[in-house]
């Protein structure tokens, strides 16, 4: 709705691309690993923001799509011998279809009931994959080393995964930005504010809601495909890890719910903080405790998050940061 004074999207894309190039140019594998993780978290947080921040539906078990994408892609690569990029695209399709299928009934629920339903679905999927021999059951699946040879070895495969995650993260941000500025986005935000009013002005809520849910499922599925490709092993506990789901919610809230920039800032800040805490011997054991405390402080005192606070405090910022 706001006419931005700076070209936000080209700026962010250029910044991320430049950032992504740093570990390649300086040949710094540990920085590459860190950025891989940050881009993955940005993807997860920005995706959740589409359904939670724009539409107002707190998807607590959103990691389910990360796991599904990971499993589908892994199966295609390991069992069917597909190329990683083909598997990545193909894995997004059933993940989106499942989102549409479960979104149809559960998006009728409001508030806490929807949040609980998403947790239930994530737990149910974990049990399903725990018992499904096609996908390796409780042990999961792991690559033969020969899988990486078609990409030129494990190191080159790792770089391919890194580039892919960078592109997925940028695509997520671009989508998030496009939605926020679109008529579709305005419909979502109207639904978030008051679904009854949305209907009275002429919005049929079910369609945009399901569309938002499907879009917010596609990118985590791609991130999951990439993550587990690089990981070389997938098992149910790791694919459908509720803690990761909750952490992505924290990132969204920390950065600023409902803003485009918030999840990016939140994911980067959270990961930086965690890196700092884990490497500090005195604080390492308190890592999750401090993360919880941070969430509490944010919710109590700056409920609009870092970016939201800036926008509220300095209205001029609104025309620079969406």
């Amino acid at each position, binding site marked *: *709705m*706001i006419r931005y004074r700076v070209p936000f999207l080209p700026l962010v894309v250029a910044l991320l691309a430049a950032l992504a190039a740093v570990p390649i140019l300086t040949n710094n594998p540990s920085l590459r690993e860190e950025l891989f993780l940050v881009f993955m978290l940005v993807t997860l947080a920005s995706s959740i923001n589409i359904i939670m921040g724009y539409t107002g539906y707190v998807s607590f078990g959103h990691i389910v799509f990360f796991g599904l994408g990971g499993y589908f892609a892994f199966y295609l690569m390991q069992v069917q011998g597909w190329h990683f990029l083909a598997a990545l695209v193909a894995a997004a399709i059933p993940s989106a279809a499942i989102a549409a299928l479960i979104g149809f009934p559960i998006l009728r629920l409001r508030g806490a009931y929807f949040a609980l339903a998403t947790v239930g679905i994530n737990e149910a999927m974990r049990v399903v994959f725990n018992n499904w021999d096609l996908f390796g059951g409780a042990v999961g699946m792991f690559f033969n080393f020969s899988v990486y040879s078609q990409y030129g070895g494990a190191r080159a495969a790792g770089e391919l995964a890194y580039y892919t995650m960078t592109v997925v993260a940028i695509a997520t941000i671009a989508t998030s930005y496009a939605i926020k*500025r*679109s*008529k579709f986005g*305005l*419909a979502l*935000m*109207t639904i*978030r*504010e*008051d679904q*009854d*009013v*949305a*209907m*009275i*002005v*002429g*919005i*049929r*809520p079910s369609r945009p809601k399901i569309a938002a849910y499907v879009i917010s499922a596609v990118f985590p599925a791609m991130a999951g495909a990439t993550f587990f490709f690089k990981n070389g092993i997938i098992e149910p506990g790791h694919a459908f890890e509720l803690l990761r789901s909750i952490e992505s919610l924290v990132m969204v809230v920390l950065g600023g719910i*409902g803003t485009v920039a918030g999840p990016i800032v939140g994911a980067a800040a959270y990961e930086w903080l965690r890196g700092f805490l884990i490497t500090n011997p005195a604080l390492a054991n308190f890592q999750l405790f401090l993360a919880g405390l941070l969430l509490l402080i944010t919710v109590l005192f700056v409920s609009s998050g870092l970016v939201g606070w800036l926008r509220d405090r300095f*209205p001029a910022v*609104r025309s620079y940061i969406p």
Partner: protein
Amino acid sequence: MTALLSVQNVTVRFGGLVAVDGASFDVERGTILGLIGPNGAGKTTLFNAINGVYSRHAGSILFDGARISGLRPYEVARRGVARAHQVVRPLNDLSVIANATVGAAFGREDLSLGAARKVAEETLASLGLADKAELLANKLNIAQKKRLELARALAARPRLLLADEVLAGLNPQEVTDMLRVFRDLRTQGVTVVMIEHLMHAVMNVCDRVVVLDYGRKIAEGSPQEVTNDPKVIAAYLGDPKLAEGMSS
């Protein structure tokens, strides 16, 4: 030509309570109809039946000759019926201009975002909210929120406006301004049904008045006829002397 809105023998029940009981009336094109009656008479309920919030009602509601009973609110809205609520319902975390744009973008005309924004800007200007456009809706005071509620409805450029006590809580100057808005709407050919307790406003702008009491229509006619009707005086105004004072 048929009436734009025709309410035919409409009954709305909530369990054992009959909120609207066999109400019938027509609203002619380009006119302003006042819907009055004591608190709890079923006025707002009737609005909810017309715009599809209570889609399960007995009887028929025709809009432009076509039956709209049983349609969902978004289907009614897309035919050109807009609604301003008695209890304002701004979209709090969106800007004032976004609130108005929502009205313009999703209704009958299905405008693009850019076109909707232009309509929204014009609507805000006509209601004196232009300088508040970039504020968040929750930063407005109550009188401004009432105007915003009306702006959202008007931005849809409706054929029929359902205005539920949009004058309540406004000061006399604001009421005068708002009545001018309603007269302008009539000139533009928009049909209005307004629920209103402010009698002098009803007397001023309404072409016809329908009176509800306990869900039943007890009177219909010009504002003068209705306020002189003994049944209306008994049910609504109570004290006949007060009624005379108001109609003068």
